[in-house]
Every structure is written in C-alpha cells, then in structure tokens.
C-alpha cells in the first residue's frame, strides 16, 4: 500500500445505508443500539417461552408435558438466554443509544468494533439455541454448568455450548472496551467525571466489571473444554483436581455478573426519578461512590453461592461478612431514591411507574438476598425456590423493569414520537400484578422445602406452584402489549417535543427528537443546568 491513498469521503454527510445493508454494515451508534434492543426483545420472547414451558410443567404435580431431560434443558437455556441474550444486550443497546448523546459525543469511540460486538451476538445466540436440536439434546446442567455434570457427563452439544459462551464473552469484552473508550475520551468539554449523568457512570463501572470477569468465564469454559476433549483433570479429583474449583472460577465471574445486570438499571432509575419528581437527584456523589463500592465488593463475595460445598469455617465467615456489607451501599442508593422523591412534585407516567416499582420490588429482592447471605440459614434456603424467588425479584422487576422504564423514557426521543400512555400503563399494571403473582409465592414454596430445577414436586407445594404458573402466563402475555405499543409509536405516535418530559435535564434532551444521525458533530457546551440531572 504505497503512501497516501486518495479518499473522498464526505464524512459527515453519510447517512444511513440502504436496505438490509444499513443494518448489517452499520457503524452508527443509534442503529446498533436499535439492533441490540430488538435482538434482546426477540430473545426475551424465546427465553420467556422457555419459562412458560417450565411453568406449564410445574402447574400441577406429576409429569404432564415434557420429559425431565427436556425440562432441564429448558431451565438451563432459559437462564442462559435471559442473562446473556436479554438483559446484557438490552443494557448495551441502551448504552449505545444514550451514552454518546448524554456526554455530547458524535458516536461511539470505535464504531466498527461496535458493529462487530453486535453481530457476533446473533451468531452466538443462534449457536446456543441450535444445541437444543443436536443429538443428545442441548445443555442440561443449569446456567451455572457445574462440573462434572457439564464435563464428563454432558451431552456432545456441550462443545458448541462452550464456543457459544466464548463468542458471547468476546462480544461483551469488545462492547465494554468501546464504552470505556467512549466515556473516557469523548466527553464534551466541561463534562467532568463528576458531572456525568448516573446512567453513564453506572455503565462505566459495569464495563469495567465486564472486562474483569468475562475473560474469567472464558477461562472456565476453556478448562471444561479441555476436561472434555483433552483428558485434563481440572475438575476431577482422580487427577488431583477438584469439582469445587469449577464453582470458584465460575462464581468469580458469576457474582459480578449479577451486578453487571443490575447496575445499568440503577443508572436508568437514577435518571428517571429526578425527572418525574422535578427535583435534582439526592446525593449524587454518594450515588457514584455507592456504585463503585458495590462493584468492588462484588469481587470478594463469590463463594456465597457455595456455602453448602463444605468450605472451611474461615472461608464461610469471610464470604458471609463480605456479602452482608453490600447491603450498605445498596441501602444508600435506595434511601437516596426515596429522598429524591421526597418533597418533589411527582407525576406518574409509565417510566416513573416502572421506576417506582423497581425501587420497591428490587428492595424486596435485596432483602431476600441478605437473608441468603446468612450462611447457617442459607443451608436451608440454598437451591430451593427461595433462591429462585430472590433472583427473579432482582432480575425481573429489577433489571427487566429498569429496561422497560428506560424504553418508555427515551422512546419518544429515539423516534420523535410519543408512545400511547394508556397502553403503557396497562402494560405496567399487568406486568406488576403478573410478576408478583409469579414470584412471591415462590418464597413460600422455597421455605416449605421445594428444591429448584425439578420437573415434578410433592403435593404439598401444589397451591403455590399453581399461582406462580398463572402469574407467569399473565406476565408473559402482557409483554405483547409492549411490542404493540412500541410498533405503534414508531409507526403513528404523536410527534414528541425535544425535551419530551418537562422535568428532564441532560444533553440528550437538547437534541431534536429524533436526534440527528451523528449526535453531536461538534461538542456542545455543558451548562450546569444540563449537567447531571
């Protein structure tokens, strides 16, 4: 390639490409954000349909619809798809849309890498789902894939499962690198770190968590691959390894992972509550420090998932104490949200409804988390539906409601059209009722002694399971309202104003709705009024 090549880009005139190539080849943060969000929604239906298979089978005692073997595959794939295919892509989609607009940047820092991070996902997701149709069935060892069930005793499709996890990890790592580079390098002049909107802060920290733990997950599955195909003995005591070692490596990834799922939702809620309370966020600084402390602590609590493996006493105590500490920064966040609402001038549009439900129901999930952290009591809770109730409370009305809130909040900005408020509220109330009906009774079945990951149960648990299944169907089918509302907004919503919400602050609201293809070609001036909400 000799010397200078003549290029005649008219860089900043290029708009969206034509037809399908617009989506396949795009380097635009908004298009990529849209792709992420739609991908996530489709996977939500797939993963949700699997949850409905689970709930249908558990509607009554006895085996009705599926074989135990297939049931395990549903549980496993439901967990994996929801975590890796729904929440994470949705959060990255939100980051793609919002981070450049919120910090006054033209686009993401590394646009082509951005496209690659997204397009790996459909391939990885496809590979993962395709394992279900392979000989011997798909992964059936739970989303935590403990060895040796996932190595020596696993179906042949596990090889492809492992590679799918590698791909998902690669996508997340590239996505995080991009987000970090964008936030550190592309802020408009005057947008100091401590003026950044909280959504940007939470994503910055989340990106670091991802960068630190996704490679460890890759290491864990790589060791599995070697145990399966190359006769190593990492997780086999006969060769001097230890099955428990797998769990340590997995949860070193797995625990920070659950905060990866929730921190961006914290950010979303911290944007929404001030807007609808028409009052600045209470305790901005402590909010930032709290997120940072949660992230730090998340690295030293992993073994609270393994209290029953028989760790030495000192280990049990350490992990119990460290886990309990997380309640403190999380409490700070909850109290600050409540204080932001306090003496505000509140209205309750759909985003706010979801945000309020988030605060209440996430806190309930946090409480059960704290109960699980108490080691001697966890012996009773562990691997029962009490745990299932805990994590669905933090994940569904937590992470998922956070995403719903964000979508309703920013949708008018994204497409320049207002969604139908009545439909939004209907979606909210059905979801709210459905979610509680599904997951609240699971606390009781767990306490009564129902183990998780079983396709059939003894008759004493029948009532709770029936309610739970009914709730699941209500919740599941209400999501079609969301689909309908979003499509209707895109097609025929009322035009939205630039600021959309009268209480909203932040750079994204200074742009027209919908915003130009390249958000800020020239960096804006950051005024105090538009600094963190």
């Amino acid at each position, binding site marked *: *390639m000799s*010397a*200078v090549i003549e290029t005649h*880009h*008219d*860089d*900043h005139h*290029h708009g969206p490409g034509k037809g399908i190539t*617009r989506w*396949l*080849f795009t*380097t*635009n943060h908004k298009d990529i954000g849209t792709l992420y969000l739609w991908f996530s929604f489709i996977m939500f239906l797939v993963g949700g349909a699997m949850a409905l298979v689970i709930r249908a089978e558990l509607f009554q005692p006895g085996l009705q619809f599926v074989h135990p073997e297939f049931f395990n595959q549903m549980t496993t794939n439901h967990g994996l798809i929801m975590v890796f295919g729904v929440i994470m892509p949705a959060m990255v989609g939100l980051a793609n849309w919002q981070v450049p607009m919120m910090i006054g940047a*033209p*686009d993401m*820092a590394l646009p*082509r*890498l951005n496209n*690659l991070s997204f397009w*790996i996902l459909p*391939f990885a997701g496809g*590979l993962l789902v395709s394992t279900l149709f392979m000989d011997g069935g798909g992964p059936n060892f739970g989303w935590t894939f403990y060895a040796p069930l996932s190595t020596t005793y696993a179906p042949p499709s596990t*090889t492809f499962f492992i590679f799918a996890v*590698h*791909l998902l990890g690669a996508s997340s*790592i590239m996505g*995080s*690198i991009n987000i*970090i*580079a*964008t936030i*550190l390098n*592309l802020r408009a002049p005057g947008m100091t770190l401590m003026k950044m909107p909280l959504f940007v802060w939470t994503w910055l920290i989340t990106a670091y968590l991802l960068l630190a*733990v*996704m*490679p*460890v997950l*890759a290491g*864990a599955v*790589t*060791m599995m691959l*070697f145990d*399966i*195909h*190359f*006769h*190593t*003995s*990492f997780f086999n*005591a*006969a*060769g*001097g*390894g*230890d099955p*428990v070692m797998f769990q340590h*490596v997995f949860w*070193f990834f797995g625990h920070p992972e659950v905060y990866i799922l929730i921190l961006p939702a914290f950010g979303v809620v911290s944007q929404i509550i001030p807007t609808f309370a028409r009052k600045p966020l209470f305790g901005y600084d402590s909010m930032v420090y709290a997120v940072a402390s949660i992230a730090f602590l998340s690295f030293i609590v992993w073994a609270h998932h393994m209290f029953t493996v028989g760790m*030495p006493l000192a280990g049990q105590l350490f992990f119990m104490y460290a886990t309990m500490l997380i309640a403190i920064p999380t409490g700070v966040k909850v109290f600050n949200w409540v204080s932001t609402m306090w003496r505000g001038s509140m209205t309750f549009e759909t985003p706010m409804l979801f945000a309020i439900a988030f605060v209440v129901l996430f806190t309930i999930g946090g409480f059960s988390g704290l109960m699980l952290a108490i080691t001697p009591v966890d012996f009773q809770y562990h691997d029962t539906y009490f745990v299932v109730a805990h994590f669905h409370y933090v994940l569904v009305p937590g992470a998922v409601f956070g995403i719903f809130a964000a979508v309703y909040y920013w949708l008018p900005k994204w497409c320049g059209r207002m969604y139908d408020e009545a439909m939004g509220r209907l979606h909210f109330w059905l979801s709210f009722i459905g979610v509680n009906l599904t997951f609240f009774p699971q606390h009781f079945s767990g306490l009564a002694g129902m183990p998780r990951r079983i396709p059939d149960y003894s008759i004493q648990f029948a009532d709770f399971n029936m309610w739970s299944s009914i709730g699941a169907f209500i919740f599941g089918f209400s999501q079609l309202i969301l689909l309908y509302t979003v499509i209707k907004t895109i097609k025929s919503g009322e035009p939205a104003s630039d600021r959309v919400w009268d209480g909203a602050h932040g750079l994204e609201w200074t742009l027209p709705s919908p915003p130009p293809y390249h958000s800020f070609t*020239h960096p804006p001036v950051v005024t105090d009024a538009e600094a963190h909400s």
Partner: protein
Amino acid sequence: MANAAEDKSIYYVPENGWYPVWVALGVTCLLVGAGRWLNAIKVGGEPSFIVLWAGVIILTVVLFSWFNKVIQENHAGLPNAQVKRSYVWGMSWFIFSEVMFFFAFFGALFYARVFAVSWLGGEGDKGITGDYLWPQFTPDWPVVNNPDPSRFTNPHESMASPGVGNWLSYLPFWNTLILLSSSVTVHFAHTAVKNNNRGGLKAWLGLTVALGALFLFVQGYEYHHAYQELGLTLGSGIYGSTFFILTGFHGFHVTLGTFILLMQLVRAFRGHFKPDDQFGLEAASWYWHFVDVVWVCLFIFVYVL
C-alpha cells in the same frame, strides 16, 4: 459540512463497512468447525473440515482487508489525535482483559496447589477427604503420583526447575532470557522509529521477530521432550493440566504476537510509520511486553516455585 481530513476538531466516524459482519461469520464458522472436529474425534468418527477452513479463509481475507483499510484511512489523515487516543484506550483495556484471562488459569493453579492437592493428600482443613477417600495419595507438588493413576497416568518426571545452580542447562531459563531480551529489542525498534532511524527500526524489529520464533522453537522442543521422554501430557493429572494450559495459552499468544510483529516488519519495509505516528507498532509492542510479563509469572509460578 467539513471533512475530517481537513477539520481536525471532527471525530472521524467511518462509513458503513462490511468487515465486522464477516468477521462475526468467520469466527462462528471457525468455532463450529472446530467443535465438529473435536466431537468427531471423541467418538472416533471421520472429521470434516469444510466449515473450519471456510472460517479460516473468511477471517484471513476480512481481517487483512480491514487492517488495510484502517491503514489507508490513517494515511489519508482522517483520524485526528482524539481518534488515536481511542485506539490507545481500546488496546490498553484489551490487554487488561487478556490479563484476566490468564488470571483464571493462574487462579486454578493456585487453588489446586494450595487447596485441592493438600486436601486430597490428607492435609489442611479438609484433610479428611484424603484420609478417607485417597489414603495412598501424598500431596507433593509437582504431582507425579495422581490420586487415581489408573485414570490419569503418572508422568515420570515434572518440568520443575532443578535449582538455580543448574539453570544453565535448564531450557526454560534460556527461554526466559530470550523473551526478556526480545522485549528490549522491540523497545529499541520503537525508539528507532521515533528518532526516524529506519534502518534501526527494521533491524531491531527483525531481531525481535527472530527471538519470538526462537522462543517458540524451544518451547516446541520442550513439549516434545515432555510428551516423549517425561510422559508428561495433558492427561497426566493436575500438574500436566495446569502446566500445559498455562504455557500453551502463553505460547499461543507468543505466536500471535510474533505474527503481528512480523506484519509490522512488513509494513516497516513498505515505508509505513512516522516518528510521530506509529500506533500499529506501538500496540504490537505493548502486546509483546504483556506476553513477556505473563511469561515471567509463568516462569516463577509454574517452573520455579
């Protein structure tokens, strides 16, 4: 509106491109192909390599074009200093993620040595495991007598260091020196280009590539020795497992690094890199230093201690 090549306040956003989707496709083919191959071997079937090769070919073509394109854009002066800062951040945090990848295997090594092996050998907090289930197993590291030798064949000998006095006849020691000096030479290459010393650039870079290749050769010889003479294989228990996964992935990274440096060498011969603009070379050299640091940790924790 202004053009990024002229207005340096504009952050260059590349137009749509076909490369990334194809990379995604290529990587997927590569992995699916590899998976089919592994699974076929496992059941003793006839592997088919079509998908695997398709992946390799797609990746080669696309990555080559992609990098070419970036270099062209750079020559056209499209990216301003801020864009280049993004590359710097990107590369640094990529290396950080690589560090975490090795961290997983080092973690496994430490856990196995400190906990698993002692417990299986009847020592420590969970010594009852060894007393009751593996009474004949003694917790020595390196493990050359496995808890169940009928399933994981014992190696005759380990790769452990023979003591500082004998290092002159100990190949891993020489390999350490080779890799350490290559880190120095790549640094000289970098300084050379900054001083506009093209001859120095080519010479030092060439030497670095040669040292990388030499390292790989010695490593290959070591592996051969381990498999053929010491009976030390991936299947010889936790020692072999951790030894080969750590040194193996390191070797893989050295291979990649050598290849990247080789490409920089080709570019150097084509007249690329300017005293004030040589990020490709700089990134390659960071990567090389990283590989070097990992090796030093390996030498200490896998071979010596």
